[in-house]
């Protein structure tokens, strides 16, 4: 057989490829799996020339739990709670992705109310996810205070979720055939109060971080990714939109109630860290717009169409559907053989593809830039490893 398989050891002991005019010694440094700015257990093997990054070799698998294998041994409802633990910062969108493919394949009907609730909670969670990202981004760049501001406001959304869903992080809320519970009677009031609370806070965020000259210096022109390269590297979500491609499934293939609301897709121009920062900040504002349009018009109706104990069978064949999480396109590819358990279930996760860009972005930058880039991609490692 002509195909040869390599090892990590062979990969990182390769020849030096840098054309440095000064004959400095390059060396390998392990960043991670335990490192404050890899957001979990990501390991990056860096080839450094002094402070300059010559090459980044991501090493994955430090949190690979085999969710796809586990999915083959359970039914569809059991798979929903597993995907909560993939991208836990947009757990509801993950639930929805699985639900969407199952509902589409099994031809389940849903009501307008179910879709409205799903859209609302997903947008709330998008804000929550971006708030957390904003805080951690500030911390990665060396300013600690943004972390506390971001998480302080995130807690408010956690409270709203807690009332309706009963969980703060891993929701297991959106189920094939509906949602687990109807919304709490105070949901509408709470969400409105929160939006009124958040709007002035966004101005405060801008004062603290966005307008800071050090932030501008650190981010502008760093980690550039052209539109063509971003698509070729499989980037989606804010990473792709920052490169100037207005590709947002909420607009191009509307699901839920996104076709009924009016919102803009923020796009960047240069595809640098600053654009990624700006796009996410703008997305928070757009999510606020979406919620404001929906919150007063939640239609009446049933909140679940199928009893939770009902067995779901999906007709044999390949089914695929995807949606836009806070980080990009999450697709679920379901291969069914007509039984209660999926024959094969595969998740196309946004972080997996987005992380792949780091190799291209970081080469030639500094270590400090690498941290900014990693943070601007907004990775969640369990979503990469699954």
């Amino acid at each position: 057989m002509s195909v040869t398989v390599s090892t990590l050891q062979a990969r990182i002991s390769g020849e030096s490829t840098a054309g440095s005019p000064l004959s400095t010694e390059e060396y390998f440094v392990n960043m991670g799996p335990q490192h404050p700015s890899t957001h979990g257990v990501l390991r990056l093997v860096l080839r450094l020339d002094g402070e300059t990054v010559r090459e980044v070799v991501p090493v994955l698998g430090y949190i690979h739990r085999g969710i796809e294998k586990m999915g083959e041994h359970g039914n569809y409802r059991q798979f929903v709670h597993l995907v909560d633990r993939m991208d836990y910062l947009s757990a509801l969108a993950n639930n929805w992705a699985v639900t969407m493919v199952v509902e589409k394949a099994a031809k389940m009907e849903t009501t307008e109310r179910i879709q409205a609730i799903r859209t609302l909670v997903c947008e709330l969670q998008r804000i929550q996810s971006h708030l957390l990202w904003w805080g951690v981004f500030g911390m990665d760049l060396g300013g600690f205070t943004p972390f506390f501001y971001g998480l302080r406001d995130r807690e408010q959304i956690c409270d709203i979720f807690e009332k309706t869903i009963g969980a703060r992080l891993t929701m297991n809320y959106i189920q094939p055939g509906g949602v687990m519970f109807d919304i709490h009677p105070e949901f509408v009031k709470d969400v409105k109060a929160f939006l009124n609370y958040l709007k002035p806070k966004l101005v405060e965020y801008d004062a603290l971080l966005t307008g800071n000259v050090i932030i501008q210096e650190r981010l502008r022109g760093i980690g550039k990714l052209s539109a063509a390269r971003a698509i070729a590297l499989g980037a989606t979500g804010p990473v792709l939109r920052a490169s100037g491609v207005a590709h947002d499934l909420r607009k191009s293939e509307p699901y839920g109630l996104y076709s009924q609301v009016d919102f803009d897709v923020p796009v960047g121009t240069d595809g640098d860290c600053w654009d990624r920062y700006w796009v996410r900040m703008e997305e928070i504002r757009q999510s606020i717009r979406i919620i404001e349009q929906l919150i007063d018009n939640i239609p009446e109706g049933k909140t679940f169409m199928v009893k939770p104990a009902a067995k779901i069978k999906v007709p044999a064949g390949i089914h695929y559907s995807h949606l836009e999480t806070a980080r990009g396109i999450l697709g679920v590819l379901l291969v069914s053989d007509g039984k209660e358990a999926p024959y094969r279930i595969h998740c196309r996760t946004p972080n997996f593809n987005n992380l792949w860009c780091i190799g291209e972005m970081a080469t030639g930058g500094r270590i400090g830039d690498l941290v900014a880039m990693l943070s601007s991609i907004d990775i969640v490692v369990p979503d990469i490893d699954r």
Partner: protein
Amino acid sequence: MGVITDNLPGVLEPLPGGSVLVTAVDQLINWSRANSLWPLTFGTSCCAIEVMMATGAARHDLARFGAEVARPSPRQADLLVIAGTIVKRMAPRLRTLYEQMAEPRYVMATGSCAICGGPFMYHSYTTVRGADEIIPVDVYVPGCPPRPEAFFYGLLTLQKMIKEGESIRHPGERRRPVLAALPEGMTLDDIRKEMQDLLSHDANVTMTDAVAAGAHYAADLKDF
């Protein structure tokens, strides 16, 4: 663990009243250790958001217990919070991190993944079923993920445990692991009330209750 703790009992014990003095020094050391648990910045998955980030953040504020000084280097950390799933590939690294920490070191396993593998227990070919298969664990905090309040309960339990230990006479001796689970039949209001009680009396967690709760929990598991 240093010249003082090694030699102090030998010097002091024979003296009249030396035993009292040793106990006093012991209490002082335990007090300082219990109130200065610097955690390692380490989290593998979902639990890291809840028990490392949300607890440290403004609403819950880990700093109240003097534990907000998260050290990125294991050498300077006292508390290893295993926040999230441990898989086979991570296991040797976790062990290394634990070995790199300087004595005395404490380990908290938060979340069902770190306790037993949690939702990834069956049909997973990589998930380690419980971090205690790799390193000794002092306190278990159940939940998936545990709420920040649950983490605080675990932290207070650990403080209690440290304060009851004998650092000088028996340095490094481990207490048996404690499950910081809440007793059965508790409601949210009970928890809030108990948290307020706890906060008003410095870390008055009764160990026996926690252990009893642990037995309860184990019994539940059997039935399950």
